[in-house]
């Protein structure tokens, strides 16, 4: 077990808005890896949309905000190769001509990691206690793969998930066509790319697809469901954190059974929460199971 450490979660704007369960899964995994987790409130987005649109001034302003918000933590962890890559690879490029800011950016870059590679490479995790009876294809998000070298780590942890069989996805390293603003600026090209991706996923015979970036997953899930596919799409963190029973897959209705407004027991049984729709994700009770039980 590595030394206890203070980790800050870089939530990412997509997880914040679309799928908080990925954030809670990340928190659970980080705690299992011996970290206490904080979520700095002054974070919004890593600034990548501005950076990749050529708006360097706004990208820098947002980067400065992130650098300040995440100062002092041992580690900064994002459940996304794209956002972690932005901080780790592109912040130093962004401030290449400002020595003082560059030093800060480099210092942050050194502490910043993509979630799964952090668990394996930095915290020495080699298995998880999770159960998920599926045959799943794994798509390598471009930034995680090519900027951060995330390739083998997710496969290693997924190999320890009970009931899970990984199906080799041909073209796993080819972009799904999301690309941030790319999918809005060039929708027909993006469509062709995600159509090819969906066809390749279907050809594997897998009943599920996983990835480490919510951008790719929203794109792939949206295409699969438009094609009428019932393939289950999830962020890898939910599977590794064994939270698949608590939340429906991406793009799936919460509960196919009747009772669309069934009462969800709020974690601490607080009053006034009962009317919440079952679609709305409720975080599991904290603290998570004691670290020792996980045995890695």
């Amino acid at each position, binding site marked *: 077990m590595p030394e206890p450490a203070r980790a800050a979660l870089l939530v990412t*704007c997509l997880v914040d808005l679309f799928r908080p369960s990925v954030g809670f899964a990340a928190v659970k995994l980080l705690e299992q890896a011996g970290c206490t987790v904080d979520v700095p409130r002054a974070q919004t987005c890593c600034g990548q949309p501005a950076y990749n649109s050529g708006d360097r001034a706004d990208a820098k302003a947002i980067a400065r905000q992130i650098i300040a918000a995440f100062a002092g933590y041992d580690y900064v962890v994002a459940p996304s190769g794209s956002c972690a890559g932005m901080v780790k690879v592109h912040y130093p490029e962004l401030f290449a001509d400002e020595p003082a800011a560059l030093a800060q950016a480099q210092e942050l870059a050194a502490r910043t990691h993509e979630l799964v590679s952090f668990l394996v490479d930095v915290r020495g995790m080699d298995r998880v206690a999770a159960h998920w009876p599926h045959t799943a294809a794994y798509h390598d998000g471009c930034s995680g793969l090519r900027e951060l070298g995330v390739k083998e780590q997710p496969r290693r942890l997924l190999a320890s998930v009970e009931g899970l069989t990984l199906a080799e996805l041909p073209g796993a390293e080819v972009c799904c066509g999301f690309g941030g603003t790319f999918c809005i600026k060039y929708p027909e090209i993006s469509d062709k790319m995600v159509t090819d991706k969906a066809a390749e996923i279907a050809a594997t015979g897998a009943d599920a697809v996983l990835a480490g970036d919510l951008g790719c997953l929203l794109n792939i899930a949206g295409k699969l469901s438009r094609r009428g596919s019932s393939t289950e799409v999830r962020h890898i963190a939910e599977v590794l954190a064994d939270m698949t029973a608590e939340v429906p897959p991406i793009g799936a209705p919460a509960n196919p059974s009747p009772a669309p407004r069934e009462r969800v027991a709020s974690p601490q049984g607080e009053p006034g929460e009962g009317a919440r729709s079952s679609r709305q994700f409720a975080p599991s009770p904290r603290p998570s199971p004691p670290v020792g039980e996980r045995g890695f």
Partner: protein
Amino acid sequence: MQPTSHSFPANARAGLADPILQTALGLARTGFPQRRQEAIARLPEFEELREQGRAIKDHALANLDFYLELYERNVTAAGGQVHWARTAEEARATVLAICRAANAKIVTKGKSMVAEEIALNDHLEANGITPVETDLGEYIIQLRHEPPSHIIAPAIHLMKEQVADAFREAHTELDPARPLIDPRALCDEARTVLRPRFLAADVGITGANFLVAETGSSIIVTNEGNGDLTQILPRIHIVITGIEKIVPTLEDAATLLRLLARSATGQEFSSYTTISTGPRRPGDLDGPEEYHVVLLDNGRSALLGGEFQDMLRCLRCAACLNHCPVYAAVGGHAYGWVYPGPMGAVLTPALVGLGEAGHLPNASSFCGRCESVCPVKIPLPKMMRHWREREFAWRLNPPVYRSGLRLWAALAQRPALYHALAGTASRVLGWAGQLRGRFRSLPFAAGWTAVRDMPAPQGRSFQSLWTEQQRRSERRR
């Protein structure tokens, strides 16, 4: 040729809707990457070679003036002549003047992207000289009167049926009932038709993959041997290429040759690697009587010392095209000029202007696969981003896009407001999408929902749930 890069979106749609193109691209999409992968797997030092390749080109570019002058001295010493061309126009005029002085009627050509860049064929034709492309792919597209769609496989957008059609239309002297079904028959026919042209040509024009400063040599690689016939049989050989092709020594060229074919076609070496130094010497059995080199700048020297200098390392191997999912979706003609794919997305704005070619560096998901396979490690996505920065600074983007981006950026710099809005958006969209779990259409995301569903948010933002959870645990303490 007149660029149509400004029409990239329409060009791309046409490419996506073309079933023949899609079939052809579908074959190339997996074939090239697989062959490259197999070739580099057999060469353990490939990664180290990439580093060496980059260093060789960087050194040559950092000392470009020195090596170009050394090269010229050595070409002259070998009996050849170097012509400097600042612009495409100067290059065309130089080639035409050499052809006219030789009273040339027929000019054979090896494959040259620089000749495409300066639209040499059109210029020769307009002046009564017949250019004959001798590379099979270039010959096919010349018959079809279209530009190349790929820098090493110019006719990659065609299937053999279109080639057969083009041959039947052009080769009217042959039996119209002849079968032209298999590639071998097509290849044989091209040979038969081209052979007398090789012999009749007065001038042969080739490009160059490398110029060697220490020897004054030019090097070309081909798989068809057509380059050799083009430069040996006619009385005059003209090499036309860009100033960035210079390398200091033959040893350097040898290192880069080890990278080139593996990156391009997955071959260990091209079938023919031909080194030419000056015209025929006394005692030589063959070779031209005159040897000319036209060195084109055309905007290249303006890239030196700036953020696009790295682009001048390019070997024109096409690995970036072969691994680009955007190129694989739309094909090379969509890019609207001579250089397609990621290398074209960086180079074209430099050569024809950002106003014309602004779409090209934008039409990338920044997947980074191009950079990861580039034999000389050109940071292509980074340079595409540099073009986007210029576009933003020069206010060339659509106003709607600019103001949307600025609004979002302003919000992202106000965390309290941002979290309030994100929380509300999450609730509203989560509520609206709760039954299906996804949206089939969303008015403000029509580009997205036109072709795919939008998964519904879970209903609360992470920040609002986290804050709630923190408050609860504080209360418990």
